[in-house]
């Protein structure tokens, strides 16, 4: 006859084995912590990062495909090439968050609201927000797409030799009205 405490101990042992097995399969190496070298850890971290960047690229492309009717084919193809280049694991800072799905959505809504026919240059902030920019000489418009349609923008304009700089935070829908006074439509319209 097995006592209650023995049953508990066997149950606990089985539970511990199961946890260790799962951890081992996930590659956490709990069973053999000393066998994982620093090179292996680095390789694993890079593999994880590559997978996160792959997911981010996919999210960006899916979101773009969902509004394909608003964008011409060359624009989309070019943007996809830019995404592949931006989210390259060899160039990505390990501490940076890959671009989020919410940021892509805000960016695309901004493009539609602006009627931007010229494709922007793109980058990313350390917290996973897509940066879009257009430039002509000294004139530059930078838009950083956050969550829920919030955008942070900065404009630099050379007006008759005088440099004018302005920045702000607004929504994708309000942005075209705000930018009107800076006459920067020619930056983002081909």
């Amino acid at each position, binding site marked *: 006859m097995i006592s209650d405490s023995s049953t508990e101990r066997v149950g606990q042992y089985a539970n511990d084995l199961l946890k260790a097995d799962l951890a081992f399969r996930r590659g956490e190496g709990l069973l053999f912590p000393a066998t994982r070298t620093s090179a292996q850890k680095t390789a694993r971290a890079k593999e994880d990062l590559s997978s996160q960047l792959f997911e981010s690229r996919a999210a960006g492309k899916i979101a773009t495909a969902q509004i394909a009717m608003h964008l011409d084919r060359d624009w989309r193809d070019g943007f996809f*090439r830019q995404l592949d280049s931006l989210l390259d694991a*060899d160039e990505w800072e390990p501490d940076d968050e890959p671009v989020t799905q919410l940021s892509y959505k805000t960016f695309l809504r901004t493009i539609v609201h602006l009627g931007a026919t010229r494709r922007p*240059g793109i980058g*990313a902030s*350390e917290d996973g927000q897509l940066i879009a920019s257009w430039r002509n000489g000294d004139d530059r418009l930078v838009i950083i797409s956050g969550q829920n349609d919030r955008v942070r923008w*900065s404009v630099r304009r050379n007006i008759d030799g005088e440099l004018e700089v302005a*920045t702000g935070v607004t929504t994708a829908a309000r942005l075209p009205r705000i930018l009107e006074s800076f006459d920067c439509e020619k930056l983002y319209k081909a």
Partner: protein
Amino acid sequence: MKTTNIPDIDDIARHVPWARLEKDEDDNVIGIYPEAFRLREGESYLSACWVDFYAGTKPQKIRQNYDDMSKRRSLGKKSGFAITNVGSLKCTCEGRGAKPRVVHETGHPTQSYVAVRKFPSDDDELLEILATGCWSELFLVKDL
């Protein structure tokens, strides 16, 4: 850690990853985004390196800074270094009501390590002014 103020006539460089370099629609690098100078959450100062810590021409000095930093972490081949003169940086920040301290920190694994303390990284307009003005000189790693 011992700190020393960097002379105003000297230059410092900030490493700018590919994601924070301004590109045109064909991925040609044309500048630096203001976000290159934004502090990460939890950071209390902006990190950079002291260009004039080393001897040689400016590209040679930056190359030595690159070699020093590369020993500690991997730097992307498409990344770059944004250079500013310390005096110009302080003057630009002072114009916005901030008084940063630019100090060399002895004992850091990167020998030429610099901390820009009291840097007002939440001033969006200042970041735009720096990125297109006094902190806009750029050396790409691929050209070093």
